[in-house]
Each structure stands twice: as C-alpha cells, then as structure tokens.
C-alpha cells in the first residue's frame, strides 16, 4: 500500500468516520487534524448526517468547569431556599457526541474532565455539597488546527481511537460515498458480537510491538475498531483486511519506532512488497525472540501502517528520535498563570463563586448590607427575619499570581577568551536587571573555570548586589563543563520549586576538558557533560547555548541538543545583543 492518493485518503477518513458513528463511545473519539476549510466542513456535515443519536454538544475553548460538570443553580437555589442542580454539558452529552473545537488549545482542566468521562463512561462529581455519579458516555470529535509541532494534549489523543488528517486534501478529492445510515444502524446492532480469531488478535499484538506502541488502551481501542469495520462490511467475523485498515486508522500515528524493515526506503518497500518473508527477522531485533512465527498478514499490516505514519513523525522516527509529546499547555512550566485560588490577594471583585474563585464572605455581606431594609420589605412574610442576599452581592477575592522568570547565566570563564566573554556577560546581567526593575524577574550567574563551577550570583533582583558579586572575577584554566551543567540543573530545579520559570543561558564553546572530579581528560569530560545535560533536559526547562567563539563549534551545538535547548552562534557576543536574545527567548513560551 503506498502513501495514499488524495481520494483514497478521503475514503479512509470517511471509513473512520463511519466507524466512529457506529460506536462513538466505544472508540473514544476521532482526532481530526485539519485547518478549518471546506473539506473539514464537509467532514463535519457528514458526521452530523451519520450520527445515530440526536445528542450533539459543542464544547468551546474556554468552557467553564461549572458548565462542564454542572452545579448548583444559584439564583433558583437562593430564591427558593432549596438546592437546585443544573446538569453540565458532559452529562447532557450522554449517549451522543461532543465536538471539541480548537482541541490543541483546550485547558488542561477541561481535558482532565473529558478524559475521566471517557474512561468511566460516567462522571463522579464532588462539588458544592452534591456528590453523585452521573452517566456520561459519549464520543469526542476533537478538531485540531495545530500548526507543525502543536497538538492536543496526549492525555486526550491517547484516548481517541481514530485519527484522520484532512490537511492535504482539497474539496475535489472528497468523493461521495455509498455509506448510509441503515448501514450504520445495522453495524451498531451487530459489532459487539463480531468474532475475533486468535491469529488476528496475535497479529494485532505483534503489530503494536513492532511499532513500539505500549499503550494497552490503544490495543483495546483497535480491537474494537476491527470488529466495527467488519460489522460495517456486513461480516460476522473479522478478517485480515479489517485489521489492516484498523491499524492504519488507529495505530499508525502512535508509532514510536520503525519496525525492522530495510531502513532507508520504507516507502519504496511499501510500494512493491518484498517477496521474502524473512525481512523482518533481523537478529538484532529484541522483539523477534518473542514472535517466532510471524503470522502471514503481519508484513502487509505493518507496511500499511508505515505508509500512513504522518510524515513529520516518520521523519523523526527515521532519525531515531523518540517523539516527545509536547503539549501546548500541559506541564507546570507555564510562564504566566492567572490564579483564582492562589497568589497575592489583590482586592475583591463582583463575581460568581461557581467559577472557581473564592467567595469573600465579608465583602459579600458588606455589599448586601445597605439593601437589607429595602429587601426585607419586599420579602415574603416567612423570610422577614433573614439576611437577604442576592447573587449580585457575591464578591470574590482576586489573586495575582505571576510566574517570575529567572535568567541563569552559565559562563565559561576558562581559557583566553574568558575576559571578553565575562565582561559581556556581566553587561548583559546588568542590562537585564535594569530593565526588569518593574517586573518580578531575577538573574543568577554561574561561572566555571579551573576545576569547578561556582554560583557567583544567586538569583537576585538587586542590581547593587549583582555588581558587587561580579566586580572581581578571574578567568583562565580548564573547562569543567559537566559540573557547570550539574549545578545549573540543581539551581533550575530549585527555581522551579519556588514557582518561577528558569531560563539557562550558556556562554561556552562546548569544549569540555575537566571531568567532574576535577581531573583533566577530554573524552571523559565530554561524556560526563552530556550525561549531565540529559538530566537537565528532563526538567523540560528552557536553555540557550550562545557560542561566542570566533568560529561556530560543533560541540556547542551538541550541547544545545543534549540540553534540549536552542543554539546560537554569536561570534561578537555583546551585552545588548545577549539581552535581546534572552528577552525574545523568554517571550516564546
């Protein structure tokens, strides 16, 4: 099977949609990667046509928690004095389909609720005095308009059984199909009973192994998909072709490694299938001991899967990278967060406590007080004696919680170029401190020379202190890069824990020659530096390597890669230039 032509790609998307329509909840959902446009519109219209239940909800980007989960209907509750519950979007979607727009930007919290509903088919609520479990089984259509490298959070995509990519299609490729809803209903009634024979399940398990897919959830979802595809064809038993199509729709994009097909031209392999079956049995593959006999359809299945691995992913797999699922808003190193619950209280505002902000009781009572006489006169006789508070009186505490950023300069003070580099680094520190005077940002400086690295300036906002610490700084000697990276990692961890965002700026040519224990030796020094860099990378924190040597050094680039950071060659590193680079690097996130 070759990287499919446009119209067959559309047919595949259509088949995936048909399967989804048959059993939205069982498949979790469908991840639609496509910019908005006529093709996507057509696809969504089709989804609407094929939908078997009448329930369809749309979740906008910033849906509030109280709308998603439901909550107390405050106005009613206060007016009647009895609890009135309004059900949330997710519970209302039970049995139907939820469309998530701009899925790549949805807040972590919304995703978390969606995921727990997808897992359990129900929602357990612990809100506002009500604890109950409500059914919420639905399928998700996640519309992903992400650019290259941007995608919905893996927690969500992991749970969506299907993926279609409409990005490269034009409206002319979208041919009409012969699937109708009678077809779908028929499949809906019968898919659960479709038989999966042992060879097929084995082939599925072997495929996940070969593609390096470790999520049992993916296997289970694919097994369901196989049954649904068979049911759509009117069969009561799944066959190899179902497996092949299911793998293409549900597994190809999850690959984390390329199976042991002859490497450089997998596409060509796919085009003209090799006659010999031994090709996957290369001795160095660790998996092969566990799959002594490869079931006949496996080769074809894996080839089909490879042909449908998204191009970007395929390229990075070829280079032997583990794809790093970077989600746009996951993790904890968001630069700025507006907190409703945390930070410095900065006064109160009129607001709704259901949105997660904290009710400020005193302010609320104060707001209600002037109205009491008036309201008591209007209140029914049995409530005369009570405090009359209306939703408009609610006051919530405002918090300001800004993530500070801390710029960490790590300066190579070894060798001859040291004096120049140090002078410019000092200049950059001063410039940064000067213009962040009004912000809550701080700067730190580590210098490494001789046999160890030293923290010369702990994170500070004080310009005076910085000048004093940097005044006398000798240079020269060896390059203990490993120790410097280690110290940077430690300090970054500490900064993260304090709730700030560190940016490490390395000023070095990346040539290490002093090992961690202070002994000279290039090879060991370099290895240790790289190992230390890997640990830094695990922090997932920003790093910049500025290469200030007259000619760009390969080693500095390697260091940047190992740190998971950016590399910049700046033969004439000057203070102002560095400040600008750091500023722009911090602005990216």
């Amino acid at each position, binding site marked *: 099977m070759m990287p499919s032509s446009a119209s067959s790609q559309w047919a595949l998307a259509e088949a995936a949609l048909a399967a989804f329509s048959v059993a939205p909840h*069982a498949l979790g959902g469908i991840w639609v990667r496509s910019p908005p446009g006529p093709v996507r519109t057509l696809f969504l219209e089709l989804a609407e046509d094929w939908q078997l239940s009448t329930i369809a909800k749309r979740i906008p980007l910033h849906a509030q*928690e109280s709308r998603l989960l439901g909550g*107390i209907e405050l106005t009613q*509750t*206060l007016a009647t*004095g009895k609890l009135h519950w309004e059900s949330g979007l997710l519970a209302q979607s039970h049995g139907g389909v939820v469309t998530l727009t701009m899925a790549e930007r949805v807040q*972590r*919290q919304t995703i*978390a*609720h969606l995921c*727990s509903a997808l*897992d359990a*088919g*129900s929602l*357990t609520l*612990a*809100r506002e*005095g009500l*604890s109950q*479990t409500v*059914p919420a089984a639905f399928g998700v259509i996640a519309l992903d308009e992400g650019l290259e490298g941007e995608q919905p959070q893996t927690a969500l995509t*992991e749970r969506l059984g299907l993926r279609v990519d409409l990005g490269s299609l034009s409206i002319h490729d979208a041919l009409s199909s012969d699937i109708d809803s009678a077809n779908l209903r028929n499949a809906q009634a019968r898919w*659960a009973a479709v038989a999966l024979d*042992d060879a097929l*399940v084995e082939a*599925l*398990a072997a495929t996940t*192994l070969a593609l390096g897919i*470790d*999520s*049992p*959830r*993916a*296997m*289970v979802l694919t*097994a*369901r998909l196989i049954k649904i595809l068979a049911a759509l064809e009117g069969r009561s038993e799944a066959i190899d072709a179902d497996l092949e199509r299911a793998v293409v729709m549900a597994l190809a994009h999850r690959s984390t490694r390329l199976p042991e097909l002859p490497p450089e031209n997998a596409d060509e392999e796919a085009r003209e299938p090799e006659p010999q079956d031994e090709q996957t049995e290369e001795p160095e593959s660790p998996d092969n001991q*566990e*799959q002594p006999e490869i079931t006949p359809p496996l080769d074809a299945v894996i080839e089909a899967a490879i042909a449908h691995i998204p191009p970007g992913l395929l390229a990075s797999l070829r280079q032997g990278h583990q794809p790093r*699922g970077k989600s746009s808003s*996951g*993790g*904890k190193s968001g630069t700025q967060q507006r907190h409703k*619950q*945390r930070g410095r209280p900065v006064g109160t505002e009129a607001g709704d*406590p259901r949105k997660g902000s*904290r*009710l400020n*009781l005193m302010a609320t009572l104060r707001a209600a007080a002037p109205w009491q006489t008036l309201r008591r006169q209007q209140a029914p006789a049995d409530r005369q004696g*009570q*405090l009359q*508070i209306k939703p408009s009186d609610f006051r919530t505490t405002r918090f300001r919680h800004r993530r500070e950023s801390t710029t960490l300069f790590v300066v190579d003070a070894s060798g001859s170029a040291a004096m120049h580099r140090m002078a410019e680094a000092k200049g950059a520190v001063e410039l940064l401190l000067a213009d962040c005077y009004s912000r809550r940002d701080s700067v730190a400086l580590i210098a490494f020379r001789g046999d160890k690295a030293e923290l010369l300036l702990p994170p500070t906002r004080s310009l005076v202190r910085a000048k004093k610490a940097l005044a006398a700084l000798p240079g020269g000697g060896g390059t203990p890069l490993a120790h410097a990276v*280690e110290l940077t990692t430690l300090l970054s961890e500490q900064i993260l*824990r304090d709730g700030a965002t560190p940016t490490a700026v390395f000023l070095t040519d990346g040539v290490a020659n002093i090992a*961690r224990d202070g002994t000279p030796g290039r090879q060991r020094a370099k290895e*240790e530096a790289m*190992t*230390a860099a890997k640990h830094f990378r*695990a922090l*997932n924190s920003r790093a910049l390597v500025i290469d200030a040597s007259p000619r760009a050094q390969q080693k500095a680039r390697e260091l940047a890669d190992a740190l998971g950071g950016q590399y910049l060659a700046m033969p004439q590193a000057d203070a102002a230039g560095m400040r600008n680079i750091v500023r722009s690097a911090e602005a990216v996130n």
Partner: protein
Amino acid sequence: MAAPYPFTAIVAQQDMKLALLIAAVDQGVGGVLIMGDRGTGKSTAIRALAALLPKIPVVANCAYNCDPERATAGHCQSCQQEKAGSPKKTTTVSIPVVDLPLGATEDRVIGALDIERALHAGEKAFEPGLLARAHRGFLYIDEVNLLEDHIVDALLDVAASGENVVEREGLSIRHPARFVLVGSGNPEEGELRPQLLDRFGLSVDVATPQDVASRVEIIRQRDRYEQDPDSFIKQWRRKESAQRRRIEQARLQVALVSTPDEVLEFAASLCLQLGTDGLRGELTLLRAGRALAALNKKDIITCDDIRSVAPMVLRHRLRRDPLDESGSDSRIARVLESMEAS
C-alpha cells in the same frame, strides 16, 4: 453503571497489584505511587481494588467515618461532643476510595464554609471536603505530578499529621484525616516534588508487557469483559472473593506477625548499604514485609519477604546520583545480590 473490571483479572503488573494489596492490608505502610505509561491500567487497578476492600464500622451519620471502636480522642468534633456515655449508633461501610480529580479546588479538598447554609439559614457550617471523606480509606490522585502546588501543600501537611486543620472564612475546624495516598502518573509529564515523593511508602513502575502472549491476553480479557460484563464478572467472582478473604484475614493477622532479629538486621544493613536517608525506609520495609507475610498466611517475617518488597519500598528513597545511569532498581538488585553472597 458497569461494575468495575475485576482486580484478579488484570493481566501481568504483579508489582502494582502487590503494592496495592500491601497497602490494603496495612494502611500504615504509607501511600502507593504508581508511575508508568499511559493506559497501563493504573486507574483500572485502583477502581478494582475498591471493590475488594472489606467493610469497616463507622459512626452513623458521621461525615468523617469515625471509628466507633477507637477512643474518642481520635474522633471528629461532632462525635466528641456527643455525650461520652451514650452509645453511638454504628454502621458499616466499604473502605472509602476517594478520587481527587485534577482541577479540584482547595475548598473542595480541605472543606470550606457551606455557602448555602450560611446565606439561607445564617449558619456558619463547615462543609467537609475530600480529605474528610477519605479518612480511614484511600485518596486516589491520578496524574499526581500535575497536581497544583497549593493542593500539594495542603496534602503534605495533612498526610504527615493525620489531621486536617481548617482556618478560613471565619471557620476553625479540625478533624482526623488519615488516609492512604495513592498517586499515579506518567513520568514524562514531570517530576514529583521531593516532599510529596517522601509521603509515599511504596512506589512501583508499570510498563506494558513486551511479549505477544501477554498483549493478546490483555486484548482478549478486555474484549470478553466488554461483550458481557456481567458474565465476565461472574466468571471471576470466585477469585475475587478469595482475594477479598485473603485481604481480610491478612488485616487481622498482620499485627501478629513476629519479626526475628536477623530480619531487623537485614533490613537495617540493606538501607545502610544503599545509603537511604532517615529511618523511614527501614520502618516501611518491615511494615511492608509483615503485610506480605500476612498475605501469604505466615506468622513470621523472613529475609525473603524483605527482599521481595525492597524495590518498591526503596526505589524512590535513593539519593539521585546524576552520573549513575543505571536506575535505582539495578542498584537495589546489586546490593541485594552482594548481601546474598556475603
């Protein structure tokens, strides 16, 4: 609502199952941290465990699951205020397994002023939070490494002291909150704060089996369960109730397990050689070992018990050596081997 997938039907993942069983036998062992890839059945296992847990007696209508058999000192304020002489009504409930969902707010976790009653009746009443409900049971946090820092702060304090102290919105409440913290997460999402890591007694890494046969088994079992959950659960009922009895008996027996000196020495020298900080490692080793012995219906703990639980007890307590590429597990294995030899 579909019944949860049976605990005993979970394919492979022996470590995770054992750690959860040990925590169910001796809740004093501390929490269980389960880290691993997505979809490896971490949540499934915990929901399944909930169905296996025995019932405990509680004071009727007590929001904090107070234990009627305990001295009043450990009770919540409302149970203490009732006349000491009057016998309390008791009832039995299953050991609670409370979910702390991601995005939970501080007021829902630690409890807060009951707004409705404050406004309507003018009463200053406390609405207990998740910590109150988890008292004497399990508190489960999925994606524990993504938990907001201020929630972690609240948890750390309560987990250490066993008591929740609420001072907010004009309320001043304290109530007991002793629970087993169960956290799960994906290591790629981020690190755990060291203080939080320290609260977990046991830690296990889960990974998907790397052989076709187990994977086939996973797909098959799941498919059978989905096709007909009721009859699937019926098939496993005997194993499930055997497992439940095993937990119940072990809970009774664990206090009677005796600890010979040589085992104490073994545990101490193991910790010494691995250089773990503090005594907590040794104490947890012994508790977990005793729970394991009780699960195996033995009344004396042996060095082998310690050996089996050592990885899950000590894995997260080792000093991180940034230049030792071999993980904690292999260090523990190395030390265990060298102790065997000597």
